[in-house]
């Protein structure tokens, strides 16, 4: 991958042609996407949303023994006050009974710094962070202000790296650089690959003091896999996927979320990298393959019954474990189906709309179809080739599903809800309230320390949906007593009327 020599990873728009503006039928996106017509679109009306800094913060503040420095104005990073609750939970899970929560600093760039530059302040922050907290790694996130005033975070980190003991990771995630927040994943992995994943093999350095130990380690590595978790995965999600991989006889090296930086150092020595979300980790896994020969599987999210099976089969095929995988899938599916039987009648024929990250939205929609529900609309936060697989599955069953590609943009959502009147909305944190105000029942699409992945996730999602449909009073009454901010005529207009452009780029 030639990208790695550059200081920053490329934008998803450029690397994958990713788009965030589309409205229409689900079958209608493939053609304009392939022709590149969706790349240069924009909205004449838009609402504040998520930039690449936020997923970067969510992942990086969860790392163990790591300090994150948000190099910018005092507000960039504030999101950690809510993101940090899952970090705290992660620390609790790994045995800390008085968890500190996410540790992050802001360089608090002020008017004076905007004029005279923020590099000195950043340098001092790095040096003091090393002294104060003695972390394994210090991550420097560049935000919009340093991006515009021209602070060179790479040269600052280069200058100080010999004075401190922590590994230094500059991450370029200036919000204005890309409109695809998923670029954050590439930005993070880019820095880890350049600064931490060095391929140094412990067995070459006398860590194992005899030949037998070295040989044992070599055997262990044949069953060691990198499991690429995502920040929207909860502890129970991680346990479920680990459970399934353990059943295949595999040992899991989990990263990036909640991991120690050592998990990255170990990654080149695994037998396989396993993605759980193609939009999340292709950048990292394909580099590991190219540079260290670690093969990977990554086309499938293990959310949904068939999807989980496909995911397991893909893993098994790479390691010659097909027969074991089939046995696992058979017994797991049978057990799940037995458990689902009494729940499914409550879900049958009920309608749903979903909104969140690309793969999450589409894979969860596929699961709901398996559970007997009818999908009215899906709203992935962005769209690119990774989503095409799930879009095909969905449109195969029902080509009249509406597809709206939008990073939140609740004004489009409420217009669609008003037309479609779904029974259930499954959406991203901060997105759900607008559906709630329409009187629709809501299941959050990730988080809340619940389980969504694998077979256990399929079961839990089903029973939670049944719970939400069993009492809709809260949102019913809410919708009758509060109003949305849009003028009345909005609901009779095309929900996508503000999307413009899209001609082939010159």
């Amino acid at each position: 991958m030639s990208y790695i020599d550059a200081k920053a990873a490329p934008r998803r728009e450029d690397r994958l042609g990713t788009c965030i503006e589309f409205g229409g039928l689900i079958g209608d996106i493939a053609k304009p996407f392939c022709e590149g017509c969706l790349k240069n679109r924009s909205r004449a009306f838009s609402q504040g949303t998520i930039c690449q800094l936020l997923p970067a913060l969510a992942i990086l503040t969860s790392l163990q023994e790591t300090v994150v420095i948000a190099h910018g104005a005092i507000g960039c990073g504030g999101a950690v006050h809510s993101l940090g609750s899952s970090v705290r939970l992660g620390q609790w899970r790994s045995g800390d009974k008085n968890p500190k929560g996410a540790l992050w600093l802001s360089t608090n760039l002020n008017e004076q710094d905007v004029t005279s530059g923020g590099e000195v302040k950043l340098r001092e922050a790095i040096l003091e962070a090393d002294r104060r907290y003695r972390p394994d790694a210090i991550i420097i996130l560049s935000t919009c202000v340093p991006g515009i005033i021209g602070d060179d975070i790479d040269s600052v980190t280069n200058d100080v790296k010999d004075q401190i003991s922590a590994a230094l990771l500059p991450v370029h995630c200036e919000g204005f650089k890309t409109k695809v927040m998923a670029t954050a994943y590439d930005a993070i992995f880019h820095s880890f690959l350049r600064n931490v994943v060095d391929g140094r093999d412990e067995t070459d350095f006398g860590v194992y003091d005899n030949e037998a130990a070295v040989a044992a380690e070599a055997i262990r590595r044949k069953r060691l896999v990198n499991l690429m978790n995502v920040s929207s995965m909860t502890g129970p999600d991680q346990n479920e996927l680990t459970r399934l991989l353990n059943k295949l006889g595999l040992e899991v090296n989990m990263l990036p979320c909640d991991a120690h930086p050592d998990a990255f150092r170990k990654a080149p020595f695994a037998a396989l990298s396993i993605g759980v979300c193609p939009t999340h980790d292709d950048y990292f896994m394909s580099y590991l393959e190219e540079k260290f020969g670690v093969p990977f599987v990554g086309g499938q999210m293990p959310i949904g019954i068939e999807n989980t099976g496909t995911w397991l089969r893909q893993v098994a095929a790479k390691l010659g474990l097909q027969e074991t995988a089939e046995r696992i899938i058979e017994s797991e599916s049978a057990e799940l189906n037995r458990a689902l039987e009494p729940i499914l009648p409550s879900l049958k024929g009920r309608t749903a709309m979903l909104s969140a990250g690309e793969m999450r939205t589409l894979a969860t929609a596929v699961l709901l179809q398996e559970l007997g529900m009818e999908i009215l609309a899906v709203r992935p936060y962005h769209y690119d080739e990774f989503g095409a697989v799930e879009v095909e599955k969905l449109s195969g069953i029902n080509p009249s599903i509406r597809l709206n590609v939008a990073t939140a943009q609740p004004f489009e959502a409420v217009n669609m809800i008003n037309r479609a009147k779904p029974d259930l909305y499954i959406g991203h944190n901060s997105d759900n309230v607008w559906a709630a105000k329409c009187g629709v029942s809501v299941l959050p699409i990730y988080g809340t320390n619940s389980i969504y992945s694998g077979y256990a996730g399929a079961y839990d999602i089903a029973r939670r949906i049944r719970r939400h449909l069993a009492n809709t009073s809260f949102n019913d009454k809410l919708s009758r007593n509060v109003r949305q901010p849009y003028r009345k005529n909005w609901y009779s207009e095309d929900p996508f009327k503000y999307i413009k452009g899209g001609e082939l780029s010159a």
Partner: protein
Amino acid sequence: MKNKFVERPRTFCALGGALITATALPDVIPIMHAVMGCGGSIYWNQYGSTGYLGAGYCGGLAAPSSNIQEKDIVFGGVERLEEQARSTIGLVEGGLYIIMTGCTPDIIGDDIHSLVRKLQAEGANIIGAETGGFRGDGYVGYDIVLSALAKGFVTPKGRRKTKKVNLLGIVPGQDAFWRGNLIKLRSLLGRLGIEVNSFFTEYDSLDGIKGSGDASLSIVASEFFGVKAAREFESAHGIPYCESPFPIGPAATEIFLRKIAAELKIPRRLVDSLVDEETKNYFRYVERIADAYNDLDWQRHAVVVGDANYAPAITKFIADDLGWLPEIMVVTSPVGEEDEPKINRVVEDLESRCPVHVVYESDPTEIKKHFWKYIPRRTDALHQDIFSPGFVIGSHLEREFASDIGADHLTVSSPVGNRVVLNRGYAGFDGSLSLIEDLLSVIAFQR
């Protein structure tokens, strides 16, 4: 304060403060002129730091935003802003639109004011404010928005209404209990016959704010926040202002009321009878908790961590009314050296004469170090004079510290991520009863 990094900042940026202030105002629609992530950053901060204050009518991810991109930064973003402002007015229903800028337009120098004048000339109810995040914290954003209202929205009036005031200094979001606090103070002032424009409560309206130019006084229930807005009301409308520390509890609230009454020349007997009645009422409740307070020894050593409103207010209340020992008071919001005497005065004037170490510090890790400077560590001696029974009244960032030192903990000051706040307020006589409930419930919860 030294110009350096901040660990886990307890505030929003100026744009964040401005956005939450605007969405707390009745019928006001914010239009952010910012990059796409500002809205999400601010909302997720709000989510985790203000007692789960939701988006409201048009906040959160519904807040209109120009979401400018690199090309707008290179070529200027005003064209995109104009498109966004026009589409917002066409789509979103509101009484007043406020354009507020993020860091990037402020750095590249986008001229929002020419656009505002152009739209005003076409009949739009719109004003603008430069609130780039690097201009300061959330408190600064509050002051900028209210100043912009005073300057660009409030109608100039020739005459003053003698008993009409504007109430400033309680900052939505930065104070998780802003609604409750404002309602408690406006109701107390109302009982002195004062008409109050408090901007943000269910009793306020956009028309009321527009007509606030005939107030005869701005009351700043803070000596730090809202002062700049009060000055703007003074320079734009000739309304004088009076600062008084944020009042929690009978002792502080009496001082507050007497100060306001003196400014407004309200007869002394009116104040006497209000204070009398409120004090009696306060003790009607306190009398019934006195049994447990004394039987179960509910007096505590305390560390108070809060902004320049809360730290002195809670310190005074627990020292002078609740009878606790506030050993250390940590002020987390920036206080210039010239303003330190204001904080020190509250401590020096404590009726209880409790000695309090005052510390100016925001970083949670450093606060722990300050604590150990003043409080002896546990040793292996048989008899030890340690910080016990202890209580830390602070933000959710002090949980770990409290647990480390074996103290109880209640989150009151920002960030408030482990409590849900609706109409609770701690200001005044009545509010302090809620604070007693919350503090003592932490202790009682363990029984």
